[in-house]
């Protein structure tokens, strides 16, 4: 029999972290700080709206781009949050999570050989999506001393005449880094000068703790070359509803809609009705959750300081990314040993790219009570390592 598989797919590395968490899930009394989704349930009024839409029998497909009411709510929301105007009829598409938007944006924009710049450490799906789109992923390694922000020089060093897209993953998973308007202005200049498009993944935009989020699409000359991706998973605690969206120039959105039409048809109808409610009446819930995350973030930074663990102060998402290089172990060795000794599971930074080596990701999408026990365990472990030296 012939090989049934595509070489491209087989050559894509599976996520290496599986094994680690399979082991962790079989151990008793493990505290895991590995999850990348909110610990809050979706606010009840949003769930209620989803239930109501089912009661009403709204169980049919929506239009390919999604409910027009929802697209209007989205453009209104982006106008009010970021000061950018989009046409709900032609410049928005509702997708199955932000993840689908990343995939179809790359497929709509890349030809074989085009280069996609991916700053790392970052979410693990940009690289495979670029490969599946036939493009060549080019990694930019972000540095701890820059607080894991992308610098103008790093960008310039990576641009070639084949560069088509720059992925901007901020606020960042796994580092928690955010980029301010000033930081983004430097990047925008290069993008315009070198004629590069930007795929801005702003899924954590609601979760910033030092000033409001700034979208690169709001800078002069950038809206026409940016695909802005966002969704309901993180800010509104709606991961399981699988709902995201992309906004951008009609020329690109219409081609993305074509791919979406052929492989997805439309995003889940129930979720779309619930999302309308989220945008209309969800601000106070987001505020409550943001405040709670911020308290936990402060608690973790305080704990690290007390145990003398080096970590830059992150102002976004719900992750902290402490530096463990002083212990002379790889991220994976550290994570395995920590799990073994203290039954505490964290994600090795290397899972997010080579530049994450020497760091661990700790998620604070957990209750304060749980984080307290976890920090006791981490502190105990670190003390043991230091005493051994």
């Amino acid at each position, binding site marked *: 029999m012939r090989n049934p598989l595509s070489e491209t797919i087989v050559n894509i590395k599976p*996520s290496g*972290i599986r094994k680690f*968490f399979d082991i962790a*899930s079989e151990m008793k009394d493990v505290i*895991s700080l*590995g*999850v*990348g*989704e909110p*610990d809050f349930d979706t606010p009840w009024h949003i769930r209620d709206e989803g239930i109501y839409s089912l009661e009403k029998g709204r169980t049919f497909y929506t239009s390919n781009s999604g409910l027009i009411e929802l697209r209007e709510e989205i453009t209104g929301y982006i106008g009010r949050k970021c000061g950018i105007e989009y046409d709900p009829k032609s410049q928005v598409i509702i997708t199955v999570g932000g993840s689908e938007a990343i995939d179809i944006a790359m497929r709509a924009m890349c030809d074989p050989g085009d280069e996609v710049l991916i700053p790392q450490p970052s979410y*693990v*799906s940009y690289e495979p999506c670029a490969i599946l789109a036939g493009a060549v992923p080019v990694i930019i390694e972000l540095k701890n001393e820059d607080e894991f922000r992308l610098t103008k020089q790093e960008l310039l060093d990576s641009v070639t005449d084949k560069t088509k897209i720059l992925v901007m993953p901020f606020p960042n998973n*796994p580092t928690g880094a955010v980029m301010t308007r000033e930081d983004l202005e430097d990047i925008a200049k290069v993008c315009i000068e070198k004629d590069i498009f930007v795929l801005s993944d702003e899924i954590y935009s609601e979760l910033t703790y030092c000033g409001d989020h700034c979208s690169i699409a709001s800078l002069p000359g950038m809206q026409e070359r940016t695909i802005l991706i966002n969704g309901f998973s993180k800010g509104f605690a709606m991961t399981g509803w699988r709902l995201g969206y992309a906004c951008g120039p009609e020329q690109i959105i219409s081609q993305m809609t074509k791919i979406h039409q052929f492989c997805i048809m439309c995003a889940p109808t129930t979720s779309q009705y619930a999302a309308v409610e989220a945008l209309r009446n969800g601000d106070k819930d987001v505020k409550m959750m943001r*405040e709670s995350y*911020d*308290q*936990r973030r*402060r*608690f973790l930074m*305080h704990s690290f300081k007390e145990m003398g663990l080096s970590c830059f102060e992150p102002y976004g998402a719900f992750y902290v990314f402490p530096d463990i290089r002083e212990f002379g172990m790889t991220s994976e060795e550290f994570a395995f040993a920590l799990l073994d000794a203290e039954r505490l599971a964290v*994600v090795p930074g290397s*899972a*997010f790219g080579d530049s994450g080596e020497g760091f661990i*990701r700790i998620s604070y999408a957990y209750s*304060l009570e749980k984080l307290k026990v976890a920090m006791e365990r981490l502190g105990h472990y670190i003390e043991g390592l230091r005493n051994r030296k």
Partner: protein
Amino acid sequence: MREKILNYIEKNSRVELAELAVLLGTTEAEITKELTDMESEGIICGYHTLIDWDKVTTDRVNALIEVRVTPQRGHGFDDIAERIYKYPEVNATYLISGGYDLLVSLEGKTLKEVSSFVTQKLSTLENVISTTTHFVLKKYKDHGTILNGDKTDERMIMMP
């Protein structure tokens, strides 16, 4: 800052001040000062404990009593409300819009205590026209806390 402190201690008044200072990004001195000020201004009226009495004893009941009264010239409902809320067995008293005037809550009493309060004390007050006593059969949620609402974490590690 005041609102942040209140939002936090409304749910957990036993938090240590040093910890609260870390969580809210301020100093312990600032927290202490705000708490003292809010206590003296009557904003913070007490630090109570939320108890699910059903788990302690079975012979205690909670009752909500609707009371219709005749308001008094010059005093409205205040005087009669005072006569009612001064009874130590009364847990809360509210002036209510709608079909009746005062809502009186009794908590953690025996059936006998409730009935003797209503028949011998409340109903006999001069301005009380009528009372309707509702016994609470089950408490689902109190002070924003769902009783018996333990939930397990069902999230899975999908991808790093």
